[in-house]
C-alpha cells in the first residue's frame, strides 16, 4: 500500500497500459508482438496495481476460479482453431480467402493490412487470453505467498 499519489496515478494509467497491451495482441500478425507480448504488457499493468494497492485488494478483483477458467479456455480455443484445419492438415490456415482475416498480403514492402493472416490473429487472441490469465495468476500467487498466505484452489 503506497501513497495516494501513486494509487491515483496507477488508477489512471492502467487503462492506457491495457489498451496498449490489447493493441499489441491485435496487431500481432503484422507488427512485432503477439499474444504473449501483449499479454505480458497487460500483466505489467496488473503488477503496477499490485505494487500500488495491496495483494489482498487485488485478490478480490481477480478471482482464482475466473482466472483458471479464462486460462483454460484460451488454450482450448487455440487448440480448437488448430484442430479446425484437420480436414486438410493440423494447423492448416482455413480462413485464407474468406472475408474474416482472409486477404493475402501484397508481396514486398507496403503498409500492413489488419485483415490478413487467417487464423493467426484469432490464435493471438487465444494466446493473449491465456497469458493474461496465467501470468496474472502467477504474479498474484507470488505476491500472496510472500505475504505469508496460502493460495487455495
Amino acid at each position: 500500500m503506497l501513497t495516494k499519489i501513486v494509487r491515483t496515478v496507477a488508477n489512471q494509467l492502467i487503462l492506457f497500459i491495457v489498451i496498449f497491451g490489447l493493441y499489441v495482441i491485435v496487431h500481432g500478425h503484422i507488427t512485432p508482438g503477439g499474444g504473449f507480448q501483449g499479454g505480458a504488457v497487460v500483466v505489467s499493468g496488473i503488477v503496477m496495481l499490485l505494487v500500488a494497492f495491496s495483494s489482498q485488494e487485488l485478490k478480490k478483483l481477480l478471482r482464482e476460479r475466473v482466472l483458471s477458467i479464462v486460462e483454460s479456455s484460451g488454450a482450448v480455443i487455440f487448440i480448437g482453431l488448430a484442430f479446425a484445419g484437420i480436414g486438410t492438415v493440423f494447423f492448416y490456415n482455413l480462413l485464407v480467402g474468406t472475408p474474416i482475416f482472409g486477404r493475402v498480403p501484397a508481396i514486398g514492402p507496403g503498409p500492413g493490412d489488419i485483415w490478413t493472416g487467417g487464423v493467426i490473429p484469432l490464435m493471438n487472441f487465444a494466446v493473449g487470453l491465456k497469458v493474461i490469465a496465467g501470468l496474472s495468476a502467477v504474479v498474484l500467487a507470488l505476491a500472496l505467498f510472500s505475504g505469508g498466505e496460502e493460495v487455495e484452489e
Partner: protein
Amino acid sequence: MAALITHSPILIIVIPLLAAFLTPLIGMTSRKARNVLVVVSLVFVAFLVFALARDISINGIHVYTLGATSPDLSIPTGFMVPVRIILEVDGMSVFFGIIWAIVSLAAAIYSLSHIASETGQNRFFTLLLLMVTGGFGMMFTGDLFNLFVFLEIASIAGAALIAFRTKFADTQEGGFKYIVVSAIASLMVLFAIGLLYAQYNSLNIAYLAQVIQYTTLDKIALGLFLIAFAMKTGMVPLHLWFPDAYSVAPASITGMLVITSHACMYAAFRICFTLYGGVINAPVVGWIIIIFGLLTMFVGVTMAVFQKDVMRFMSYHAISQLGYMWVGVGVGLAVLGNPGLLATYGRDAMSGGIFHILNHALYKPLLFFTGGALFHYTGTRDLTKMGGLAHKMKWTTILYIIGTLSISGIPPLNGFSSKILIYESVYQFNPILTITGIIVSILTLASFTKAFHSAFMGAELPEYKEVKEVPRSMIIGMVILAAGIVFVTLFPSLIVDWIIHPAADALIDPGPYISAVTGAIP
C-alpha cells in the same frame, strides 16, 4: 480409419494437450466426469499409438507436416529445404511411444485414488496430461527446436508434479533440484541447437543429418547434447539429482518420470545415430557411453544396497538399470562403422539395450507403484519402520514379487530375456562388460530381497493394524504393467521381431529417416 492413421502423429500429441486444458473446466463441475475424460483420452491415445505402430511396420516412416496442404509435403514447392514444423515417426520413435502410452495410462489410473486425499487434483491431472504431451512430442518431433520445447514442457510439468504434495518440505526440495537441473540441461541443449543452426541454417533433423560436416563446432554441440541428455537420464556421475527428485514425487509420477528419462535417452540416441549418424567418430563416442554406462550400472546398484528409503532405493536401481541400456547401445555405436562386427554382435547388443528399455519401462514403474502403495497407508517411505505388510497387502506383495524377479533377471521373467541378449553380445566386444553386468544383477537381487524382507516379511506389526489393501484403481494401474510383464515374458521373440529389431535398424541406418523428409539423397 485411414485418415485417423494419417493424422495420428499429431493427434497423439494434441489429444492429451486438449484434455489437459479441458480438465480444469470439467473438473469444476464433476470429479467423476474429469476422471473419465483423463482415462478415456489416454486410452484413445494408446489405441492410436498401437495403430500407428502397426502402420509403420507395414508402410514405413510417417511424416506429418503441420500447416501444409498435404501431410507429406515436407518440402514446399519452390523450396530446397524443409521449412515447416515436421513430425517424423519411425520404428524407434514409435517404440518409445508404445512404452509411454502404456505407462502413462497405468499411471493415470493409479493416480485416481493415490492422490484422492490431496487438494488441487484438477491441477494434478492437467500437469499429468501436459507431461504426456511433452513426452510424446519429444519422441515424435522431427526438428531440434521442438525437441527442446517438448523437453521443457515435460520438465516443467514433471517438476510441478514432484512438488505437488506441498505439505512436505522434501517434495519442494526435490522439485527444485529437478527443475534447476532440467533448466540448465535444456538451456545447454538450446545452445547446441544454436551452434548447429549457425552453420547449417536449419533445424530439421533429417536435413541437418544430410548436410552435417562434423566441424569443431559440431563436436562441441555433440558433447553438449550428449551430456545434457545424459544428465536428464541420470547417468553417473550426473545422477546425483535423480534419487532426490524421484523419491519424493507421488508414486504415479515417479513411474512416469522414469519414462521421461527414457525419452531423453531416445533424444540422445537420435542425436548420435541419426543426426550425427554419417559423420560421428563412432568408437570414441561409443566408448564414452560404455564407460559411463559401466559406472552407472555399478555405482547405481552399490548405492541402492545402502539405502533405507524405499523410493530412494528403487531410484538408485533405476539408475543402475539405465546403465545396461547405455552399455548395450554404446557397444552398438562403437562398432557402427564396421559392418562385419555390427552383424555379428553389434545389432544384438543394440537390440538387447533397446529391449531392456521396454522391460525396464514395465517393471520399474510397477515397483515404484508398489512403493507408493506401501506409502499410501503406512505414511512412511522408511524401510526401517516397515514390516509384516504382506499380511495386509496381498496384491501389492504379489506384484512386488513379479517386479523384483523381473528386475533381478530371474528366468523366466522378461528382465532375463533382455539381459541374456545383452550379456551374450557384449561378451564378444569385451568380457568385462558382461562380468560387471552379472555382478550388478546379483547385487540387484540381493538388495531387493533385503527390501522385500524388511517391508513385507515378518510378523504383523502392531503399528500397522489399520493398514489395508490399497484401493482398486491403484491395483488396476499396477496390474496393467504386470500384465505387460507377463506378456513380454511369454513371447520375447515376438516382441523382438515386431518392435525391437525395427527400432534397432532405424538407429543403425539413418538413410530412410533422412530420405523420408528430404526426398531421395542426391
